[in-house]
């Protein structure tokens, strides 16, 4: 069935409190409501501590919301395959080799050795990891660790992918790899939420933005509307993409069609 246009995720009055009842309790999500259609690529932005990571964790089912609901396909009981890539990938590793790290979840799904080998190989290819699979994931550099964390999730073929600051530590090739993965998701009509402060990267990739502040959804807009929201975002202390900054300062008129040349470097 073509689900294009239907709401895949519906978030209703979602709230979450960290350290509830403790001296440092923090309201991380405050009565959040929005819906996401299948195939949408969404950027979640907002200042530090605005609840972005908490939102991803609630969507992934890692945190149980204090109140409110998250419906997938309109049902409370249905949980699609969701992949979450956390901010600090090295925290999630627990195996001795890169291969074992990626194969772990596949083994638990009962795949045969041949299937596992092939899936691991494909996942690593997608992330452009060129090192040995017998290497310990703990001895890799920050950028390589992020590639392995992404490969672990891609191997599971998620229907919804949640990325928390995926560009951190990635070099030029890594950013291209990430763009390709997003492109792949787009062509397969899969859904993606990307939390990032790197608006220069997001601006080229996402269709719609959710802006959080102090746990509340303060604004929800499409890429086309970005320029009309610049003042609002700047007031919130968020940085706007450098290309828009340049436009705002009045780049020469004959160069004003800059965006059409394609910003990707």
């Amino acid at each position: 069935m073509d689900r294009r246009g239907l709401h895949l995720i519906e978030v209703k009055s979602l709230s979450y409190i960290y350290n509830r009842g403790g001296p440092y309790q923090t309201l991380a999500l405050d009565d959040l409501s929005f819906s996401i259609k299948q195939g949408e690529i969404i950027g979640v932005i907002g200042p530090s501590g605005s609840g972005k990571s908490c939102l991803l964790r609630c969507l992934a089912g890692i945190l149980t919301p204090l109140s409110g609901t998250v419906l997938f396909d309109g049902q409370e009981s249905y949980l699609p395959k969701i992949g979450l890539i956390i901010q600090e990938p090295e925290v999630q590793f627990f195996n001795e080799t890169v291969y074992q790290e990626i194969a772990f979840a596949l083994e638990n799904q009962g795949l045969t050795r041949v299937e596992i080998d092939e899936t691991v190989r494909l996942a690593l290819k997608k992330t452009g990891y060129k090192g040995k699979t017998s290497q310990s994931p703990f001895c890799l550099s920050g950028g390589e660790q992020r590639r392995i964390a992404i490969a672990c999730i891609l191997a599971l073929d998620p229907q919804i992918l949640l990325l928390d600051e995926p560009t951190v530590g990635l070099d030029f090739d890594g950013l291209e790899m990430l763009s390709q993965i997003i492109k792949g998701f787009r062509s397969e009509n899969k859904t993606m939420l990307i939390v990032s402060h790197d608006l220069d990267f997001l601006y080229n990739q996402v269709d719609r933005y959710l802006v959080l502040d102090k746990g509340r959804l303060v604004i929800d807009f499409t890429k086309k509307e970005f320029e009309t929201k610049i003042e609002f975002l700047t007031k919130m202390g968020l940085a706007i993409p450098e290309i828009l900054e340049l436009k705002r300062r009045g780049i020469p008129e004959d160069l004003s069609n800059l965006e059409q040349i394609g910003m990707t470097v």
Partner: protein
Amino acid sequence: MAKLIVMNGVGFGYPGQTPILSTVNFEINEGDRISILGPNGSGKSTMALLIAGLLAPTSGEISGFINRPSVGIVFQNSRHQMVGSTVEDDLAFGLSLMNLTTDDLQKRVAYFLSEFKLASKRHYNINQLSGGELRRLALASVLITEPRILILDEPLAMLDKEAQSIFLNCLKANVHPETALIWFDHEVRSIRHTERWMVLSKQGRLNPVSLNDLDSRLFLKSHSLTPAPLQWLEWEFPGRISGAIFGPERITFD
């Protein structure tokens, strides 16, 4: 300017694995402001650990001048270097090993808390800090001990622009002019904050580079370095636009 550290033909590798660094020759002098750029896995963090003496080279030698200068590192992940449970404890830890009087110690801690905009968080547990505050605390805890060499390993990663600008202001205001600053990154935009630039290749070699190199699309692509956000402008309009490498503030149109 006095020499602080000289690396002579330094190599490093884990047993049974391809070497990460091979024959690195490098000299750090007082007051240096150096960027070392390199793609993922090129050995940036390894080199930082070698300079700090936290790893020993597997070939070549590293000589320290002036009684082995003190080296401070701000790691990629600030959480890895927290030793105190509260902001104040963490800041005071390095000083507490330096034979200061209690009065001196308290004065310096108070000064750094205010300089790094952490005074209101003085008694907070470090787990309650935001990413930006944590990174500032890491920098403050390093600078409070007055290191001769300061190493920053991708210091702006994971910070939003506001947190980046507060971090940079704190850095500029509190680094002693004679302290050598070595900034490791894979993003070309980091060169805005330094005066000398070098590139670590995937083969583990370190070479000095010029602004022209870093402004070339081909060069950045072949070294897998992340261009500054607007550098594509210069590449699309050669000869008409310059300064994109230093951000919108410095762009000029001819």
